[in-house]
């Protein structure tokens, strides 16, 4: 590990103001410290934001909620309001990491966690995300965890967050604070950039900006919400694919559907065409398969991710079967219902 300076910020804006080249914010540290130990990230200075009360707490905002950037994953998943109004979010968070990590991990840090591409984690291997222009060792390497949507020849890495996938399906916004104290909001789906030819530029945050909060819009009554994560073991693994589905039925037909996908793209992936396919339809495997067809039209696979096509198709069908009440929730499945 490289030696670094450590400073504590007095206010969120002051923290933002310190973010010049070579400086990183540290929140829970569950991702950053791992990366510093293996010297994939070598900040010369850390700005500790963990004592800033202004970034803490969950408070009402309009009909929705404002979730401070420092709210831990454990706290957020357990919050009664979240469990009642936005159960998808709670389920998605609980499907990620471990209890210990969720106790430390924060809302802002979760959104900004780095990819799990193994070559990104190995400084002996070429990686454009770590060192622009170096090449991409994953292209002809082992690629089981890579993305199938939104990639480029320069980088095929997936964003690993489960929480972000739920936030995307729920239409959440990220509140970004700059050094001047000004804030702006961007949809969660637009926080992360697609890699293009600069995979090292991962988000739309500018120098001198931090995440201050996440905003949830009003709850959607009468929706059934399902987070379905498929992985290589039952727990404590990143998604091979995951599906977040928020569905409302009216007289036996699908009236509303919001879908987001994890483990398959450099950001939580949404596909309006796939969603539209469902609207007005009577729930059934054939209808769900049509939505999957639309979704998969955009896919571009590494040889090791070909399996994600049938897996994503089937996971989407499985999630929609649960979201439309075609099948009972069964062991290992997270689903929840909001009262009208």
């Amino acid at each position, binding site marked *: 590990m490289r030696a670094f300076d450590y400073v504590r910020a007095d206010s969120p804006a002051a923290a933002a103001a310190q973010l010049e080249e070579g400086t990183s914010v540290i929140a829970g540290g569950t991702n950053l410290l791992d990366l510093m130990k293996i010297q994939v990230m070598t900040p010369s200075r850390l700005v500790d934001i963990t004592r800033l009360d202004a970034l803490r707490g969950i408070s009402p905002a309009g009909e929705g909620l404002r979730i401070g950037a420092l709210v831990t994953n454990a706290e957020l998943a357990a919050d009664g309001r979240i469990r009642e109004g936005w159960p998808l979010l709670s389920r998605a968070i609980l499907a990620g990491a471990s209890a210990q990590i969720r106790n430390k991990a924060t809302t802002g840090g979760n959104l900004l966690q780095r990819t799990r591409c193994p070559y990104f984690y190995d400084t002996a291997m070429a990686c454009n995300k770590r060192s622009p222009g170096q090449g991409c060792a994953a292209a002809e390497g*082992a690629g089981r965890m890579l993305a199938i949507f939104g990639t480029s020849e320069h980088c095929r890495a997936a964003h690993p967050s489960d929480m972000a996938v739920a936030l995307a399906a729920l239409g959440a916004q990220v509140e970004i604070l700059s050094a001047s104290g000004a804030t702006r909001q961007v949809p969660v789906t637009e926080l992360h950039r697609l890699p293009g030819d600069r995979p090292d530029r991962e988000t739309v945050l500018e120098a001198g900006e931090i995440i201050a909060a996440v905003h949830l819009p009003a709850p959607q009554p009468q929706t059934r919400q399902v987070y379905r994560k*498929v992985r290589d073991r039952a727990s*404590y693994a990143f998604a091979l694919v995951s599906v977040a589905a928020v569905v409302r039925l009216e007289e036996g037909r699908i009236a509303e559907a919001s879908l987001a996908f994890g483990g398959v793209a450099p950001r939580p992936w949404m596909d309006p065409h796939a969603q539209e396919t469902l609207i007005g339809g009577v729930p059934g495997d054939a209808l769900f398969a049509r939505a999957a067809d639309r979704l998969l039209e955009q896919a571009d696979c590494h040889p090791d991710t070909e399996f994600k096509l049938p*897996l994503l198709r*089937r*996971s989407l069908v499985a999630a929609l079967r649960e979201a439309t009440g075609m*099948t009972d929730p069964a*062991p*290992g499945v997270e689903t929840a219902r909001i009262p009208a």
Partner: protein
Amino acid sequence: MTKTFRMDEAQPRLLDETGQGVVGAPLDRPEGKLKVTGRARYAADGLPPGAAHGVLVRATVAAGRIAGIDAASVSGIAGMLGVFHGPRFLRNPAQGMAGAAPVQPGDEVHYHGQPIALVVAESFEAARDAAQRLAVTYEETGPVVTDPAASDRLERQDPVTAGDFEAGFAASEVTLDRSYTTAPHAAAAMEPHAALAEWDGDRVTLRGALQMLRFNRQELADSLGIPAGNVRILSPYIGGGFGSKLGIGPEAVAAALAARALGRPVRVVMARQTVFDAVLRRTETLQRLRLGADRDGRLRALSHDDRVSNIEGEGFAEPVSQASQFLYGADGLSFAQTLARVSRTPAGSVRAPGEAVGMLALEQAMDELAEMLGICPVELRLRNLPEKNPVTGQPFSARRLADCLREGAERFGWAGRGAPGSRREGDWMLGMGMASAARSNMLVPSAARVRLDGSGAVVETDMTDIGTGSYAILGQIAAEMLGLPIDKVEVRLGDTSFPGASGSGGSFGANSAGSATFLAAKAIRETLAARMGCDMSELTLQDGIARGGNREMPLSELVGGQIVEEASIEAGETSESHFSSGFGAHFAEVAVHAYTGEVRVRRMLGVMAMGRILNEKTARSQALGGMIWGIGSALTEEMVHDPRTGHVVTRDLANYHVPAHADVPGDMQVVFLEERDDMANPIQTKGIGELGISGAGAAVLNALRHASGARVRDMPATPDRVIAAMEAAAG
């Protein structure tokens, strides 16, 4: 003087006669409290004053020569003490029981990830930074062959045969010919490999995380070029080994070299990634099973061929078909192995080498055959139990396999399993599967010393406890033999200054070190009987009271000062005349998601007959742990190698998936059938550390087939492979 006992004939069951009643009891581990309160000193714990920190540097090419190591590239890092490399560095850990240095490649690089240098600094962080930044130049040779299927350096071993396989296969009414593959596995012990070396003149003391000290001492001495008498190794507590700590490793030799050069203690702890890069893995396998049978299920022909891999220079080849060579009988049997030389992380022994992967294939093939014949899988196995070892002709010493199969079927509710694919809960399909378990049994030369005095007894041996319960069982044996409450016996392990034992490996530790302890205590009993003026058979020792010859006397008085006996054991005639193995039967029930291909084990049962059980609690833990390994090899564990360099890409525990708690069902049962193996050793035990794995994964995979129709022959059965197999089954 040490008495060496040869196991030439069956011995009386003395442990059934003694009256203390501690052998077999489910006692807690005596060192358990130290471990859970952080007071047990593992290799990397407790730095002596002045200790420096070393971090290993890995090769980042797959083959070539080191052209230069530029120490100046890191000399600016604050606290740097030196960069070490040279002809004594190890390429990889020694294989189990090598007793000599492994390959020392000098400036050659044989695999990507090979430890090539050690950087030492005042702090761990500085050393790690330096290891990351050290400038190394190579003359690369390559490209290399990393894929065993593409290797042209194939070493074909002479096949093991009995009878005429080809004739039997041709004459069979029903035949099966299937290929299976298993993924490379990591031992993934919780404690990373670590060493702390300290010199006193020309003598070195190494605190290490090592399983077989008697051999490790020779290996370290040979690696360093010093007499074994100048080496002392301490390894009192080990955070899991599973074979990965059998032999001396690069961290130990590097620490010793640097400590000598710097004149101060040096500690080297492998990062988790280094454990994956440079510790021996279990090979991937390709296996071909050919079974031929009559319509009534009698096997006529059985062949189990395999291809394994290893790097050039390592003799070890996973004995894949080991259990297939004695589990079932047939008119003709044939077993052929090919070792492919590849440029991958070197391979060695990982828990149950052979059976852990071989039985995944054999026991799936038996299930496939049962299905083809329309015979119950339990019944098919019962019909094919051979009278003697079909290859060697030896009678079995003790084999309760049939009882395990019947008892397991009864307890598990096997009869109610229903037709394939007939049980469903929502989108989850349910099914049951079973498999036989077998793991051959060994006795390895071992010595131990027991000292009895007025306050109790002390057992000393260089045997190790890798988390298995050696401290507990050796104490129980001594307490039983000397008639002492368990808290009056202290067990000291893991120090080469004690009598040399087998070490922990191949499930032979309890048999071997346990027998030596037994024999030393028995010698003390003889002395006590003489002092009581009675026959050994008349002597009773219980709760510190000696009785015999119509006398009764407190043991402390009878002992006077102290009685010390050392004893050792080695295998003898019985290992020739009889074949000894643990046997069992595994049963599993799984749920398979009809859409996503996820598999969840609902419950498991292992019924095992493995000789005398010395401690019901630690034995159960071993069996359960083994069964969980079975789940891992069947469903989750897969080491992935980079196709270009051969190095391990899944270099941490987030990417190498040992089963998590959620993968392990709450309902895991282990049942031991009462057994004594009189031919195995004087305490009538068999190895228990590996039987739990052997076959367990196959039971899970057979249940997967029964539930869903998916037969997954390429393991592990991750969701993608289950989906492909379900789609293939659906046609």
